[in-house]
């Protein structure tokens, strides 16, 4: 398969080895952090300051700049985890296992953020802290899917088995996510409350849309930083007896 030049293939091959990946992460993280800070400041400035107030919701709608990107990330990360799980199962690449388990708390965090910000957005709008809105309900179930992966990984003692188990679970979960979303949406239309939720399809103006997209991209860079930090920790834990870690420790001293 010579679609890619040899150098690219070699790069990926070497990056999959823990010491190389660890060093690569160290090199990338500062740059990613710079990009993230620039984006998040731009997004916050655009969303909190530049964008006009909403006609109906006033300034409370500004929660959208976190709520929607967080919800997108919660789904995006789960799909990534499923892909990593597939790679881990089929090609037995340790790095894929490491990235999977490192991503889970970050994805769970975004899901939690989506739920809490959804609640905080809803309270002034609908008067209650919680509504069984289709999106919120789906997010809640997604949170349980994440917690299941984290719990299962923690409960299995053998590391290889734990990695295989969560890979399987992530794949099973990802197949279920569209089914769950569809069934919850369907259920929600049956029991639609008197107020149509503004969350599902906000009428979005370009001055409001741009900060939203910037925040979404900023969150992706955040994910990269967080997952690399977590992966470094996980690699150290798994490979603490290996030569490259010993060398690392000596170089630090």
């Amino acid at each position: 398969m010579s679609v890619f030049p040899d150098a690219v293939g070699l790069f990926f091959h070497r990056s999959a080895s823990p010491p190389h990946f660890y060093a690569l992460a160290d090199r990338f993280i500062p740059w990613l952090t710079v990009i993230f800070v620039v984006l998040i400041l731009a997004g916050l400035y655009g969303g909190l300051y530049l964008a006009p107030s909403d006609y109906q919701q006033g300034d409370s709608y500004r929660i959208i700049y976190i709520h929607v990107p967080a919800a997108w990330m919660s789904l995006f990360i789960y799909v990534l985890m499923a892909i990593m799980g597939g790679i881990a199962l089929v090609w037995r690449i340790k790095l894929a296992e490491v990235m999977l388990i490192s991503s889970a708390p970050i994805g769970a965090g975004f899901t939690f953020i989506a739920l809490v910000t959804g609640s905080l957005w809803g309270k002034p709008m609908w008067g209650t802290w919680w509504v069984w809105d289709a999106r919120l309900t789906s997010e809640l179930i997604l949170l349980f899917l994440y917690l299941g992966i984290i719990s299962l990984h923690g409960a299995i003692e053998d590391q290889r088995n734990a990695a295989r188990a969560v890979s399987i679970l992530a794949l099973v979960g990802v197949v279920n996510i569209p089914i769950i979303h569809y069934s919850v949406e369907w259920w929600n239309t049956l029991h639609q409350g008197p107020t149509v939720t503004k969350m599902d399809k906000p009428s979005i103006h370009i001055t409001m849309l741009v900060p939203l997209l910037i925040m979404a991209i900023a969150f992706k860079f955040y994910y990269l930083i967080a997952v690399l930090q977590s992966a470094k920790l996980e690699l150290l834990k798994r490979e603490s007896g290996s030569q490259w870690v010993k060398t690392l420790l000596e170089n630090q001293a």
Partner: protein
Amino acid sequence: MSLKSAFFAIIRRDLLLAFRRRAEMANPLFFFVLVVTLFPLAVGAQAHLLQSMAPGVIWVSALLAALLSLDGLFRSDFEDGSLEQMLLSPHALSLLVLGKIIAHWLVTGLPLLLVAPLLAMFLGLPEQAMGTLLLTLILATPLLSLIGAIGVALTVGLRRGGMILSLLVLPLYVPVLIFASSAVDRAASGLPVNAQLNMLTALLFLALVLVPLPTTAALKMSIN
């Protein structure tokens, strides 16, 4: 032994093993009835309230009964080494696992239909919904066994896997719960339920095809 006869042999074996502990077969049934009984005690005995909650209450209770009975699917075979033997057998593990799931459903899921009329009476479910209730039970209880099998396979090696099993399996049960209880609810109002039943059937076929693979992968992992 051909694959087909191995498949039926394992179903027969599991049924035989279950029959040897015939008394235990009644446990999911008792649990099912007991849980439903808790609801009037908790929310009060007003007829119209119970009637409107009946489809949901019956279905949540069925879900919990299925969940509780899941552990028996692989537990005894895991503990006495039969599961390892099945892994070593020349026959496709997927089909053997499917056989075990079918036997498990016959013993734990299908009998739930027996008490459905009793529960309908307890909660005042209209008679016109009875048929749909039985139909949803017949379609969805195999689904519960199938989906649950993945969770059991992942946790059978754990000492206290029961709680984690619930955490893993209940989110996956949500679509089944939604469609099944909605069907019974609509039937109680005399509305058509084709959409819901079609969805349940589709999910059932999907599960029949998709469940054996991750389940066998998980079993192989658990046994090591």
